[in-house]
């Protein structure tokens, strides 16, 4: 079966056939899926065990919470950046996004896990009473001593709710299809979720506008969340770390890792989920190019910060370079630099690799690993200096903090919980956007052109 998406060739499926095929795929899940769900559920429980062990250290001991903070930062960066892969091409009207927009939007569900993981991090953050430099001008303005926790919590909550709302609005027409084909309790649930969707022109217009507005807000919330977290939970803990670009770098990393995680998820659905008719080379190629350009931007963001510190060579800046780049975390930085920039650069300039399924996915795995290590490098280091007595200049560089058993369990459990909630989400929401697939069939025709046949793609305003 071919829906005609692959390079624009092949027979076109009817909208009805697309609907039947995708709904069937959603309903019929094999035993492998069930086994995977059980495995990830068990691993998630291990995370809870790790958290209980960590609790024994108490929230007052900030450095031991570094790995937990890094886990949260990693999930925020990778998973919560993924919905942007649906939002940006949708705003740009790029047709190739249609097969992958739901794959990306489903990561909004991970926001719930991410928020739960965040709560202990907020508890572990030292109060502003310790005299560190903060954006909140504590002591000069009448700010509560826990302003960073309050604002970041509100922003993360807004981001999570916004993401879920976006997912719901996007899935509404699909819920209506599921409602019309279900019976009993399922029909009641899908009716509630579809909110009386019958597909009138008014409803389509309403949905289009809501998707635009929610998408724009999601982007703003994502940037604000990265700004708040990177500043209050990272930079402000390191005396002398004044890097105006870092919040933007943090947000950029999120877009890069979001593309990477979407590519990997796409590959899993392509290889094991039976969606080869919908996800094909066009999508891997499109996202691969995006990943390539974001990897080049990674270098530019990093270098823009690095050169100012290196050239300025103020004692406070040299100490920050020591801590984050050339000191105890040098091996980690080396891994980050290699997989976030060097490997994508030298591999993706090679056409056969960029225009393949395996190439972008392999690079994406590297980028995700780099993001993971980068968050460890930044947050474990930042939490490790939180007890420094001089709050404006780092006099002593603390050594590298290695993970203990609790940290490993928390990481395994946290990541498993994210995968679990995503998998469970696909049980309710089709991982391929059915209405977008049906819509593109209207916009695409094939016609003869001189001595060949071409694909004509409509682009509405």
């Amino acid at each position: 079966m071919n829906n005609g998406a692959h390079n624009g060739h092949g027979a076109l499926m009817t909208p009805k056939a697309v609907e039947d095929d995708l709904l069937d795929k959603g309903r019929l899940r094999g035993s492998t899926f069930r086994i995977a769900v059980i495995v990830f559920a068990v691993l998630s429980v291990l995370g809870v065990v790790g958290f209980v062990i960590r609790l024994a250290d108490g929230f007052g001991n900030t450095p031991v919470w570094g790995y937990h903070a890094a886990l949260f930062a990693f999930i925020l960066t990778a998973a919560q950046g993924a919905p942007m892969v649906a939002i940006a091409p949708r705003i740009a009207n790029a047709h190739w996004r249609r097969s992958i927009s739901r794959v990306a939007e489903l990561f909004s569900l991970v926001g719930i896990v991410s928020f739960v993981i965040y709560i202990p991090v907020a508890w572990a953050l030292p109060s502003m009473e310790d005299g560190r430099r903060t954006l909140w001008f504590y002591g000069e303005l009448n700010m509560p001593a826990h302003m960073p926790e309050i604002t970041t919590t509100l922003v993360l909550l807004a981001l999570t709710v916004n993401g879920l709302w976006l997912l719901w609005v996007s899935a509404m027409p699909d819920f209506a299809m599921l409602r019309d084909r279900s019976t009993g309790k399922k029909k009641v649930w899908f009716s509630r979720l579809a909110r009386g969707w019958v597909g009138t022109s008014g409803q389509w217009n309403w949905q289009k506008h809501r998707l635009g507005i929610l998408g724009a807000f999601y982007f703003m919330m994502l940037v604000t969340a990265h700004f708040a977290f990177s500043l209050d939970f990272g930079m402000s803990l390191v005396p002398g770390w004044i890097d105006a670009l870092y919040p933007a770098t943090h947000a950029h990393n999120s877009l890069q890792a979001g593309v990477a995680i979407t590519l990997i998820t796409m590959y899993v659905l392509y290889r094991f989920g039976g969606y080869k008719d919908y996800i094909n080379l066009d999508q891997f190629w499109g996202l691969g190019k995006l990943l390539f350009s974001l990897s080049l931007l990674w270098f530019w963001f990093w270098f823009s910060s690095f050169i100012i510190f290196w050239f300025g060579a103020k004692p406070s800046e040299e100490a920050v370079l020591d801590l984050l780049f050339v000191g105890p975390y040098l091996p980690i930085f080396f891994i980050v630099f290699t997989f976030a920039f060097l490997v994508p650069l030298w591999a993706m300039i090679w056409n056969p690799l960029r225009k393949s399924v395996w190439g972008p996915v392999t690079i994406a795995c590297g980028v995700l690993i780099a993001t993971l290590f980068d968050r460890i490098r930044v947050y474990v280091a930042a939490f490790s200096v939180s007890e420094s007595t001089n709050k404006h200049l780092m006099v002593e560089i603390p050594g590298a903090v290695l993970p203990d058993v609790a940290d490993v369990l928390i990481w395994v459990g946290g990541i498993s919980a994210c995968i679990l909630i995503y998998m469970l989400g696909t049980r309710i929401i089709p991982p391929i956007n059915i209405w977008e697939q049906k819509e593109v069939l209207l916009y695409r025709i094939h016609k003869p052109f001189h001595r060949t046949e071409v694909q004509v793609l409509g682009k509405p305003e």
Partner: protein
Amino acid sequence: MQEHVQLTQKQINDDLLSSVLHTPRWWWPAVIVTGIIFLTGMGAFGYMLNQGVGVTGLNRPVFWGAYMVNFVFFIGISHAGIMISAILRLTQAEWRRPVTRAAEVLTVFSLMSALMAAPLVHVGRPWRADLWVFPYDFARGIWINIRSPFIWDPSAVMTYLTASSLFVFIALIPDLAVIRDRASGYTRKFYALMAMGWRGTPRQWKLQAIAGILLSALVLPVFVSVHSIVSWDFAVQIAPEAWHSTIFAPYFIIGAIHSGVSAVATLMVIMVWVWGWDKYLKPDHLDAIGRLLIIVATTWFFFFFLEWVFALYTLEDAELAMRDLQVFQWPWSGLFILFLVTAYFIPVPMWLFKSIRRSYFWMFVTTILVNIGMWLERFLIIVPGTMRRGEFIFDWGSYHPSIIEILMVIMTFAWVVLGMLVFTKLFPLIPLFDIKEGMVGRDEIRIGRRIVPASIRE
């Protein structure tokens, strides 16, 4: 893009070659006026060379004034060409077609103006500029300091100028052949030489397309590096506190795109008004560029916000004093408000309305405002930055540009206008082949009762 007028190849040739094959009555007066302004500026430059830089308003502690502001401003404008041409070409945005050439040419002349503003004029003794690049003394092997941003600057700008000129030329070749086939005598020889034997064979088209894509991809890193390096002229220093910020590279680049794309929009409107090319530069194009500008301007504003937030975050007296000077001390406070209002708060809310985005007049007004604001932005970074009363600065002077500087600033603007005028007389400002290709690749699809514009994909 809902408006579509199908034009024949002959119509396209007639319309777009009108600027080359016919001389409108206003053209000579326009060239003469801008030429006189340019020559007056060159006269002022000669006077400065003769008398020394003392004739300018530059003095301790403000050694960077209007010339450097102009340098940064024109480097910013030059980002239009690559933003519009290379990025939109790589992303296959159809609306780029009538805009690319004008944007690329604007890039080339702006870069020349930038070079005129800094290495030629600002240094005071331009005949010694070679010492930036070549060793001071071959015999003793004393080399220039490659760690100095003043070495990076000319290297980056010259690379960018070379790449941009090549970019313009490669895209011009098919159009040059069209003019060659319509010209006679010496003119024909000139265009034949320039067209380099173009016949429009499949192989030539293929090579031209590949060259365009490759140059687009290669010029992008140059484009990013140029303004990053210009920003590092400021940011790597620690003395003017407000300049020592990691955000400067992206902040300068996004600001450059804001001002450059606005300049292209201004140019598009002028092209419609002057040559009547409204069949090619339609309200749809302005609408698209307006939407792009909303995103660019808001991103720029975000970086501006970050720059300010982190200036306050430092809680360092020197940094706070500098910000106080920029915002609360007259006349900088007035300029600061004018900058914010013209660069963001007037144009962006206006662009949110489709009727404004599709209006030639309002797009002209708003994009001019943006560039007034962006010039002021550079002025407010440079001048209050250097005149702050910091440690070991015992001359607490201010800065007022002298008439010599003002004439030379006007000269650089006149140069861009003059260059564009001469270019339009020699070459088409809208690429003929690109428009024709767009016409061939266009189609329409009927969906229910609506006709949706479509394009052919391989």
